[in-house]
């Protein structure tokens, strides 16, 4: 299992059966592989509730997800136009959105649409999802490709919303937003608390349960 798959699997474990879920591009897309297809309903903002995987030979070029990748149509699926689709999102009818991020900070802010100094020419549904979904799970590498922390004290990249992400899952650890701060609740694989500490500039608390377990 790659680290991306481990993150995706961990994200899948956070989900309650019968939930309506929107998966972002990248690691979030992998989450579908760890879900019981009949027990979860996947929404894609370009206009489909009931996304499922598709066999190579059944690919339909006019049936894609928000990442413009070919997908299949689950039993009981429905299509709708973009305003209806975003009404579902903005109106609070999506239970969970699982998204990637460039940065997440101590205050729970997420930056995942623009990099300073680069052209800001795309946002897609990121802002609507972050504002509208009932629960936000962020899945990401703990550090950027150049080794700098992505879980930071305060976002230096433009934020996507003023709403906190509920859960942050990285290749090193799982954090839950609780009482106004993130709590580290679980370490991934053989990661140590020290590993997390050295790769994080954000403020977070280690959960009592986890400390208890480690004693």
């Amino acid at each position, binding site marked *: 299992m790659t680290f991306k798959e481990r993150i995706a699997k961990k994200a899948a474990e956070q989900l309650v059966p019968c939930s309506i879920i929107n998966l972002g591009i990248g690691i979030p897309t992998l989450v579908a592989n760890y879900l019981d297809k009949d027990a979860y309903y996947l929404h*894609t*903002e*370009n*206009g*489909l509730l009931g996304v499922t995987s598709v066999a190579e030979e059944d*690919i*339909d*070029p*006019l*049936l*894609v997800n928000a990442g*413009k990748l070919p997908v299949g*149509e689950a039993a009981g699926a429905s*299509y*709708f*136009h*973009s*305003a209806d*689709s*975003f*009404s579902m*999102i*903005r109106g609070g009818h999506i239970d969970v959105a699982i998204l990637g991020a460039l940065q997440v900070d101590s205050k729970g802010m997420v930056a995942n649409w*623009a990099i300073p100094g680069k*052209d*800001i*020419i*795309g*946002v*897609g*549904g*990121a*802002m*609507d999802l972050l*504002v*509208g979904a009932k629960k936000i799970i962020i899945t990401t590498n703990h550090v950027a490709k150049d080794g700098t922390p992505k879980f930071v004290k305060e976002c230096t990249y*433009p*934020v*996507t*919303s*003023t709403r906190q992400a509920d859960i942050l899952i990285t290749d090193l650890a799982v954090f839950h937003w609780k009482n106004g701060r993130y709590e580290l609740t679980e370490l991934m694989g053989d990661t140590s608390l020290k590993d997390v500490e050295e790769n994080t500039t954000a403020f977070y608390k280690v959960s009592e349960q986890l400390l208890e377990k480690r004693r």
Partner: protein
Amino acid sequence: MVINKISTAEQVIMKVQTGDTLMVGGFGLVGSPLTLIDALTRHDAGNLTIISNNVGEAGKGLGLLLRQDRLKKAVGSYFTSNREVAKWYNDGLLELELLPQGTFSEAIRAGGAGIGGFYTKTAVGTDLAAGKETKLIDGETYVLEKPLKANVALIRAWKADLKGNLIYYKTARNFNPLMASAADYVIAEVDEIVDERDLSPEEIVTPHLYVDAIVESRLILTREGVVERDI
């Protein structure tokens, strides 16, 4: 007296005038009116403002018009899908207005529905709300967004009857029904023109009152990319 809105791409594209604002359907190339865009590349209207989620892809769909330097401005949510857009923008040859995708969709619907503006929480506190009016409603901050309207809409549907009733195909529906409601003149390209008795009144997505002209698709998106078909 029986109404018949069928036309040809070449004929009906003349409705587009230099300086016009156009809505163009499609999420990338999916549900994009490729035949009408192709006709537009051979028509001389320029200085266009395009309201479309993307500016196609590099050299495809609306990307063709960009290369022809026919676009003054683009309004959409995700221009990243055409890597050439950034270059034109940085060279000062193309204005961009970026909106969150939900706000973009809702603004088009508002344009079609006679709504003068609406309040959304999306983008509040972000760079995309900079300079926009906000309002505190029941303790939460909302940003005011304005409706989008156009002179002409180029949309893509699956089937039409002669009156202009439309149904769509899978995720090729996307922005098309919204744009059908928000332009002065609406041209729909379709795969198939059917007898009106073949469309169930319960399943029609775009009622005919929104559609001014129908054109049969010549360019379609297949697994092998955009191909020309015989019609």
